[in-house]
């Protein structure tokens, strides 16, 4: 299955939910915010949202800025 994460096409080998995706990418789950097809998904719902073909995922966090 092909999805887009932060603008990049990524092939996912098996069915994953959002939580599994974040963990599989070794991302710091506690400090990121996730947008699934333009909808912000709260952390406690990540495991209830399965990824589907062509999903658009944005994963962001805070950095230094003025």
């Amino acid at each position, binding site marked *: 299955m092909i999805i887009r*994460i*932060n*603008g990049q096409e990524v092939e996912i080998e098996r069915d994953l939910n959002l939580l599994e995706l974040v963990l599989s*990418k*070794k*991302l*710091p789950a*506690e*400090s*990121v*915010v996730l*947008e699934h097809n*333009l909808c*912000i998904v*709260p952390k406690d719902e990540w495991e209830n949202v399965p990824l589907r073909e062509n999903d658009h995922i*944005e*994963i*962001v*966090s*805070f*950095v*230094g*800025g*003025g």
Partner: protein
Amino acid sequence: MKDLLIIGGRAINNRLFVGTGKFSDFRLMKDALEKAAADVVTVALRRVDAGSKTDNILDYIPRHCVVMPNTSGARNADEAVRIARLARASGAGDWIKIEVIQDNKYLLPDNLETLKATEVLAKEGFIVLPYMSPDLSIAKRLVSAGASAVMPLGSPIGSNRGVKTKELVEIMVSEIKIPVIVDAGLGSPSSACECMEMGCAAVLVNTAIAIAEDPVNMAWAFKDAVSAGRRAYLAGLTCGGNFASPSSPLTGFLRKEDN
């Protein structure tokens, strides 16, 4: 007399707001924020790289601070609104600095898109502080749209050129009833002091502190300058003139002729 700045119902003790970009490391940034005694601190929101090992910047911002994410990277109102919602979802609170920029050379804000984003976000309960080009009409519209403060630029972001927009900012200070905060371009403590002497409610400084040889001492210097400028404003600055006005008496000179 307590001289408190109130924004979004919150009392701000320190009128020096500090940005967190461009510091060489988070530990140094933390020391600078502490030395500045910052109460309001800005951050940006960006995509995370897979496997990124970067520390969480929020762990290096003193707990008592208001964290004000900016919408940098937004090129129009919709993008700014999207970034603001993501920032709030990350648990940083309701403050948002709206920054909408299409011009990569001077990084000047798009006032019209900024106004649109302000209208939407203020309705959603955000404490909105729009970064703007100093323009009285737009500032008034931002007030009507629900902005909690307006943040005119002193000079282009990161340029360290000081408050080149002084006369326009002065007009805003005189006519706008919500806090006017000079953001961007303040390269030296004296320029921050100048803004405070003009009656600005606060200043936001990032580059001049972050890229100084000694950011911690520079943060300290800005803190003192902001405090001095504010005190001078409250004390009532006197006007200058074209000619001298002696400060010593003009009588009783030790001269041969009669005084």
